[in-house]
């Protein structure tokens, strides 16, 4: 249980990191290390070169804008969890992050790392999918933007080139006072979720849903958008029947099967947890944690 030998680099700027990435074969980027370090210790991965991004200050920031919030790729999960600005403007982050690993791993883990590792059960990609986030990527050819919906190429593989790195994530915040919840089912708190749900709702004073976003983690390689559920919710007045009808649209989604659960169980969880997430969003902050 010791990492294999590798050459180690700790560039101080994104440009240096890209130059290294473009010139080295079989290189791995080291972000927070909460997934890559276990894989190195167990020698599941044997890189010749490890490029550590932890000494690049420009990658760690939360831009508190009302128009477009930008989060640097190396921003620690814990900083996002503790940001008062995000707690007010985008409270789903805190609710989702409390369910990511443990405090000790969130102190190191980063948003860009979670996104690029792209574990199917990961909470943050589902949140970013619900927010329709844009992923900002830089490589030798310059910078480009990838919509979150196109970011997962396949299982645990983001749609970026080997010589590119994710520098930040941006999204338009929902209207102030919008409702949200993140609900998941895991065997034990902190374990990988079998299914997780991110739900965002904007309602008017009469309680009618003006806008809804519902995404699932843990059912496919990348986050899955529940468009049918969203369509049911928008334009209607929120109530028990509506929530049930919307949630039932998720019962026949394509769900993966693995050692943890068959696809039928994931479909059941998807329907059940979507109902709980929408209800928790309506009930208010923190309600998702007790479900």
């Amino acid at each position, binding site marked *: *249980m*010791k*990492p*294999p*030998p*590798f*050459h*180690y680099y*700790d560039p101080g700027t994104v440009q240096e990191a890209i130059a290294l990435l473009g010139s080295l074969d079989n290189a791995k980027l080291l972000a927070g*290390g*909460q997934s890559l*370090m*276990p894989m*190195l*210790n*167990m020698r599941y991965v*044997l*890189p*010749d070169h*490890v490029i*550590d991004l*932890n000494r690049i200050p420009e990658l760690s920031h939360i831009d508190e804008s009302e128009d477009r919030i930008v989060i640097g790729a190396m921003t620690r999960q*814990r900083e996002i969890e503790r940001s008062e600005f995000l707690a007010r403007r985008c409270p789903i982050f805190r609710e989702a992050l409390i369910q990511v*690993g*443990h*405090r*000790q*791993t969130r*102190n*190191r883990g980063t948003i860009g790392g979670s996104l690029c590792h792209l574990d199917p059960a990961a909470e943050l990609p589902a949140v970013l999918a619900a927010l329709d986030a844009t992923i900002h990527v830089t490589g030798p050819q310059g910078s480009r933007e990838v919509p979150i919906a196109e970011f997962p190429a396949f299982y645990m593989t983001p749609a970026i080139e080997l010589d590119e790195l994710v520098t930040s994530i941006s999204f338009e915040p929902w209207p102030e006072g919008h409702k949200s919840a993140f609900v998941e089912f895991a065997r*034990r*708190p*902190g374990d990988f979720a079998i299914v997780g749900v991110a739900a965002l709702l904007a309602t008017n004073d009469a309680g009618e849903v003006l806008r809804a976003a519902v995404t699932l983690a843990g059912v496919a390689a990348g986050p899955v958008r529940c468009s049918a559920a969203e369509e049911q919710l928008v334009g209607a007045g929120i109530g028990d029947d509506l929530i049930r009808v919307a949630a039932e649209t998720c019962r026949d989604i394509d769900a993966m099967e693995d050692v943890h659960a068959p696809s039928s169980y994931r479909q059941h969880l998807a329907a059940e947890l979507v109902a709980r997430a929408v209800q928790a969003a309506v009930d208010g902050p923190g309600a998702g944690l007790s479900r």
Partner: protein
Amino acid sequence: MSMTPEATDRRSISVTVNGQRHDVDVETRLTLADCLRHRLGLTGTHLGCEHGVCGACTVLVNGNTARSCLMLAVQADGAEIATVEGIASENGEWHPLQKAFHEHHALQCGFCTAGILTSMVEFLQENPDPDEPEVREALSGNICRCTGYQGIVQAVLDAARRLRSPNQESSS
């Protein structure tokens, strides 16, 4: 192809551990945990799983807890590390958490204890007056195979009380 072991990268790093500065020459692949234990002789930090699951290796890096099995020693270059050896006061008096753990039988074999103490130092700084569910949640990243956690939870709650009113004796 990976490098042969004799061709591994090395670096000189300087880390401050429990207030004392150390200059060490390390292989870049050496974990912080192994650096503390094998190079600095600080064997209070334990290794249970070496892949981030058990929490036994938890130390404080610049005041924040981290799994030392999931950090490279080179990443700690320039950092301030606190290990279990450093949480008692300078004159050797135990930290209130240590006293409470002793009195509440919060350890049996003690393998998990170092990681739990360091984790709870950070937790109680942030949340000086936790309730029991909060303590259990904060402990969720540390596995104890002996105690069944009852004593640990009681000890953390008691230590929180002592830290809030330092002159009061244990309430147990």
